[in-house]
Every structure is written in C-alpha cells, then in structure tokens.
C-alpha cells in the first residue's frame, strides 16, 4: 500500500472534521495532505492560522508551481482553483467557478487523480453541494482509494451522498475511522 498523497474535499459542516483530522496527524506524517475546502471568498487569512494552531504538520496555502512535499498540509488558497500538475507541482488558476465554487473540489481531484493514479487516497467530507462527487469518481476510475465521511455523521450529507451515487466508494467511515485509516498509512 504505497500511497503518494491524500486529498480531502469538504464544504459546509466540514471545518470541525478537518480540524480533528489535521490535529491527529503526527508532525512526521509521510505523505502530503491536500485540502480543498469551500470557503468565503473574502475570508483570506485566518483559516490557515486557525488550522495551524491545532496541527502538528506545517500547513501552507501553496504558491503557483510550488513542489508538493511529503509531511506538509496544503490548503487550496481562497479564490483560486488548485491543480496538481505532472511533475508533482501545484498550479493555480482563476478560471470561472465550477459548481459555483472556486476552489472547485472536482478540479483538484481530477488533476490529482490524473497525476497520482492508484497511489492517491481521496476523501469527501460533509458538504451542501455536489462539487467533489465527479472528482471522487475520477479517483476511483484511476485506481485510487475512495473514502466518504459517513452521511449519518455529516452535518450536511449532500456531498457525500452525491459521491456515493457517482461511484462505488471503497469506504464509508466515521471521522474517527478516517483518522485511524490515515494513521495506518504512516
């Protein structure tokens, strides 16, 4: 089980879950963790700081063409789409919103699954729209591992249910099980 990256998408109701996941990963976690979360366009700073207080891994909003490194948490910057390019770098784009969202979870998941193929873990958390469903399908279609947060546990289950509709997900996990799984990769 040699995964190269973890990518997590979430929207409404996911902040507490993300905080819990992020605070559970050790400082020397061996994979990059890419977070693509919907947030208010004008709330630019503050989010990274809020997560950083809880996290042991360093959290950054990546710059364009920044190389992707293990042991870091990358948060998609507000008001940009975040792509993973071949050659293991990020790129950013200000193209129109997709699924009313920028960053769009689908776009980040498409590009990550294209780059990492079966060596990617894709996780969809609580959320109020369908952005991310096709992205998770792309992870599955490229041979990666797919996980959704248990809809019964989600504050808003639209995103996870849409993902389960779009593809045959590998695991439906509670937050604690997601954490245990991620720790098992270390």
């Amino acid at each position: 089980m040699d995964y190269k990256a973890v990518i997590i998408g979430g929207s409404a109701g996911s902040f507490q879950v993300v905080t819990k996941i992020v605070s559970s990963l050790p400082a020397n976690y061996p994979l990059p963790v890419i977070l693509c979360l919907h947030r208010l366009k004008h709330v630019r700073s503050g989010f990274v700081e809020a997560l950083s207080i809880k996290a042991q891994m360093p959290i950054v909003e990546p710059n364009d063409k920044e190389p992707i490194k293990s042991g870091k948490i990358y948060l998609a910057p507000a008001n940009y789409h975040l792509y993973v390019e071949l050659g293991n770098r990020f790129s950013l784009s200000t193209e129109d919103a997709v699924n009313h969202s920028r960053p769009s979870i689908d776009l980040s998941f498409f590009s990550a699954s294209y780059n990492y193929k079966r060596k990617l873990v894709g996780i969809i958390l609580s959320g109020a729209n369908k952005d991310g469903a096709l992205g998770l399908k792309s992870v599955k279609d490229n041979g990666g591992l797919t996980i959704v947060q248990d809809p019964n546990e989600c504050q808003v289950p639209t995103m996870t249910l849409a993902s389960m509709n779009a593809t045959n997900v590998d695991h439906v996990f509670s937050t604690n099980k997601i954490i245990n799984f991620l720790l098992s990769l270390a």
Partner: protein
Amino acid sequence: MVTNEDVQRFITAIKMASTYDFNDYSDRSFKRRVEKLLVDNHMDINQLSLKVAKDKDFLEKVVKDITVNTTELFRDPEMWSTLRYQILPKLKKNKSIFIWHAGCSSGQEIYSMLILLNELGMFEQAKVFASDINSDMLEVAKKGTYKYRFNLGYLDNFDKVIKENPLNYEDVKHVDYEKYFDIDKVKDTITMKQFLREKAVFRKHDLVKDGNIFYSKFDIIFCRNVIIYFNNKLQNSVIELFSNSLYREGYLILGAHESILGPVANNFERTKGFYRKKQF
C-alpha cells in the same frame, strides 16, 4: 476525453497557422480550456485543429477564448494598502513614474492604480501602459464600464483601500464614489470617469514572444495572476523580461500566490509579496 496528444496536436495547429505558441502554458488549466472550447463550439479536437489551421478569424477567436480574464477592482485590498502606505510614498519625489500593467485583462487593475495615484497626488507624474494578448479585453478596458450588481464587491474593496487605513483605524477618509465612477443602477453599470479612461496607453502584446514594446523602462510592473497559466520555463523567461524592463529598485507586483522560482529570483529582493529589483 481529451488526451495530452490531442492537446499537443491542437497547439501545433495553432503554431503553424499563427505566431501564437501555447507549448509552455500550464498543462492542467490549458487542457481544461481546450475541453471548454470543444463544448462551446460543438466540435471534437480534430475538427477544432482543422478549423484553426484554415480559418484565421476563428483562430483569433479561439485564442481569445483560451485566455482567462478574471479580475476585479482592488483585488486583494491588503496588497493595495501596502502599495499605498509603504511603496508609493517612496516614489512620490520622482518626476515621472512609469507603470506597466502586463496582462491587464478588462482593466480593473489599471483603474485601481489610477484611483490610488490620484488620492496620493501622483496622478500627473504617472505614465501608464497596459497590454494584453486579447484585443477584445483591451477594448473593454478602454471603455471602463463594468456590470454593477455582479460586482458589488468592488465597492467594499474601494472602501477598504481608499477610505480605511489598516495601520490606523481612526484615519477614515471621506471619498465619494462619484469622484471616480458613475453608477447607473437601471443599466446595471459602473463606469470609470473620463479622466481615468484617457490616461493609459493600450497595446496588444503576447508575453510569450513580444518583449518590451514600450521603449521605456518601468518603476512598477504589474503582472498579477497571469504567469500561473505558464509553465516554469516560460515563467522564467517572462520574469527575465520584467527584470530587464525595470529600473533598478523598481517593483514587480505578482498575484497573491505567485512567486519567482528560477535563478532570475536572484535579481530581486522580496518584501511583503512585492519583488524589488536589486540595485546591482
């Protein structure tokens, strides 16, 4: 599903039929733009490649549709406040200030800067040049008319940069919107005042191949959220162009999440997201 080979053939077709070269654009966003073109034109990649090879007007239209044109008035207010309180005061004593907006898109960045310069009493000494690869966007920029309701955020940004002072909350300036633009709620437009619209010189320009077309060096070059669409190699050659086009101690202003990664970074000092060309 468009493959990398498809995209490559399309890029080659454009290159053979024109002076445009998209080989060094970022893969993921370029591929996505191509996919959008296919949907919008109801064509497959072969039809599209064939048509750009044969039809010059269609090729020009495709080039316009491929490039991304997102911008807003005072995008990233914190950057504009830094410019206002920390950068521009250093240039005030200069007789002239040469400014280039490279990749100006629909022009909001130009008007943001002009408003700021006017507030600081530096409007007259500024020589403003603007360029974009997309001639339609240059026309929009010259007109200086934008949708009003869709862009209500412009007014919030204006308030943050022009009326408020992040270093001193008691320092609130009273500046009427009418000083700089007319809002027509019936037509749903916001239009920049004539004295702003007359200021800049506009030229069509392709950063990939055109070099410095203004026969001038610059004190400030803006190029925000443009080089994100270029790969590392092209980014470096564009930054090289900017470095050669700046006066010593001139400023290069990139987007909030752009940085200089190659060796040309050694030509600059970085402070607070601004790159300043070194003296030597």
